[in-house]
């Protein structure tokens, strides 16, 4: 159990956490402002990754691809909001779940129809491959450090957007009293479309960045979506601060659990069994964490408003 491994895994956890935050912040904003539970958020993650992979392949530039991915996801979000989502705001949660579940099916099968079933190739640009040496002789991939940096930058940007700008003021106003800001002359439907597109764009960014690390395939958004749900439930639905805290907590606990639980069980079990038990427990760890937190705080750690 070396320090190097610990540092490396902590960084991996933070990296997973920042990417989860990109997903969770959109989900939690959409819930906070519009009161909508959006299962199709994982689809925007996928759209971002596919658009980035396709455009990067045709232009040769990862940055152009990334920009295209964000724009594509945001556009898809705006379109979906205009056509489907805005009919759902006043519906019960059950209807929202089913309609957005239907959207997942449509997005996934539509993507399969266009791009086929085999994964697309997307790798980080050559100027971001390679390693840096961190204090304690840890060699760490540059690309993952960049992901952490992007995550931190987006978090700060989002904070400034919400606390310092007129749009942010309207978003906050929308969270506390929808009817009132409408009465004060804010165009609510435009605001909703904008918030939805913003969330979708953030999800698309996360999909594109992670897609370059893993693989770009149909259904890639679903595991991340469920992790993001755990994040916002832990943090308190509607709270950006909760999403940030929850994302880092889930990212670090999940990553460290997968590495250290098998090692832990090897101390008093035969190695083959220890790996199985450790892996199975590690897979359940964040859900157990969520259950414990909810047992004490049913509304999450940073409940925005009841």
């Amino acid at each position, binding site marked *: 159990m070396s320090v190097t491994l610990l540092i490396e895994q902590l960084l991996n956890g933070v990296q997973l956490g920042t990417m989860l935050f990109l997903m969770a912040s959109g989900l939690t904003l959409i819930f906070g402002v519009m009161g909508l539970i959006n299962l199709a958020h994982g689809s925007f993650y996928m759209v971002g990754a596919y658009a980035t992979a396709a455009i990067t392949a045709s232009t040769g530039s990862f940055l152009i691809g990334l920009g295209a991915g964000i724009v594509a996801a945001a556009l898809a979000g705006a379109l979906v909001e205009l056509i489907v989502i805005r009919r759902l705001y006043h519906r019960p*949660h059950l209807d929202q779940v089913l*309609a957005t*579940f239907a959207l997942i099916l*449509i997005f996934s099968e539509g993507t399969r129809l266009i791009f086929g079933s085999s994964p697309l190739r997307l790798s980080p640009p050559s100027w971001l491959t390679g390693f840096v040496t961190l204090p304690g002789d840890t060699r760490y991939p540059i690309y993952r450090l960049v992901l952490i940096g992007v995550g931190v930058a987006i978090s700060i940007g989002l904070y400034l957007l919400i606390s310092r700008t007129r749009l942010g003021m309207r978003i906050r106003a929308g969270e506390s009293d929808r009817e009132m800001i409408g009465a004060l002359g804010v165009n609510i439907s435009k605001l909703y479309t904008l918030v939805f597109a913003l969330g979708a764009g953030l999800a698309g960014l996360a999909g594109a960045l992670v897609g370059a690390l893993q693989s770009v395939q149909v259904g890639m958004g679903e595991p991340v979506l469920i992790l993001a749900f755990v994040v916002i439930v832990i943090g308190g639905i509607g709270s950006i601060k909760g999403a940030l805290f929850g994302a880092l907590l889930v990212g670090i606990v999940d990553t460290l659990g997968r590495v250290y639980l098998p090692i832990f069980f090897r101390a008093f079990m035969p190695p083959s069994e220890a790996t199985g038990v450790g892996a199975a427990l590690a897979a359940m760890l964040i*859900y157990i964490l969520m259950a414990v937190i*909810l047992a004490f705080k049913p509304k999450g750690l940073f409940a925005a408003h009841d």
Partner: protein
Amino acid sequence: MTNPTSSGVAEASLAPSADSHFSRKGLVQLTLLGLLLLLPVTAYFLGHIYYVNLASRITIIAMAAVGLNLAIGYGGMVSFGHAAYFGLGGYVAGISAYHAFDFTPFMTWPFSVPGSDNLLVVWLAAAVLCGLLALAIGAISLRTTGVYFIMITLAFAQMIYYFANSWPTYGGEDGLPIYLRNGLPLVDTTNTLSYFLICFAGLVLAMAITSRLMKSRFGAALTMARLNDVRLATAGISPYPIRLIAFVISAVITGLAGALYADLNGFVSPTMLSWHFSGELMVIVILGGVGRLYGPLAGAILFVMMETLLGGITQYWQLFLGLVLLGVVLFAKHGVMGWLAGRERNE
């Protein structure tokens, strides 16, 4: 908790024509149940085993949806994690058969538990284990309401899913085959028709239990817990235990359907636990008509037929499922039964 239906009193009578002797609703219900029984029997004697198995599949999925309908439709608890019970029931059947086949005990400590290939034992174990799991999950989840409840039930189901995926003893993500279908004394369960009739009996029993339950004082309390839990509390009945009991019964019904499903396919895998299946079960309940006794049956028939027919034409059939579902949610709130049999009186 939000109300999934706008109905005042949910429909709960099993007898196909309980309201009036020749009502449209009664006729539709009788036709659905009659066709589900008669078509497979006919197909069997004409030698079309495939259609009998298809009917068994519809019946089992309908039974699982009957369980979920008790939670969503009658109890207003939008569970997005019923695949957990379906899968657990399936794994009980699979694991029990695995140990019976191997003559190895399932566990030796603190007491020895052997495997069994007797369906009665399998069903009992599946019911008890699903009930206990639902008791634990429900006890935590029901402390929350609304969106939290939806996401938490989903997250717990995912926990079980990932556990099954990464636990190597019973096949992990590859799943576990059941080499010989679990049996019953005096009945040849490997016979396609016999097995269909067992499934059919299971479905009818599940619907009868739901119907009886909803006509009882308990059902009235559950309906009130859905519509207005403050008023229920004012009447001196605490909503939490009522909901929890309904949630557990709902999970047991879905779990038993899962056990039947594993034995039908001779195979159990984490797919049965996946959130996609939870979603599909919800879709079936909604397609059929939420909070209606025959809704799950109508929904399951429609869903499996779409899957079979569209799936035969195009591999992208789920695209069409998505479009149909979107249309139903946005424009046809009362499902197939609402369309076929008319709205409920109090809707």
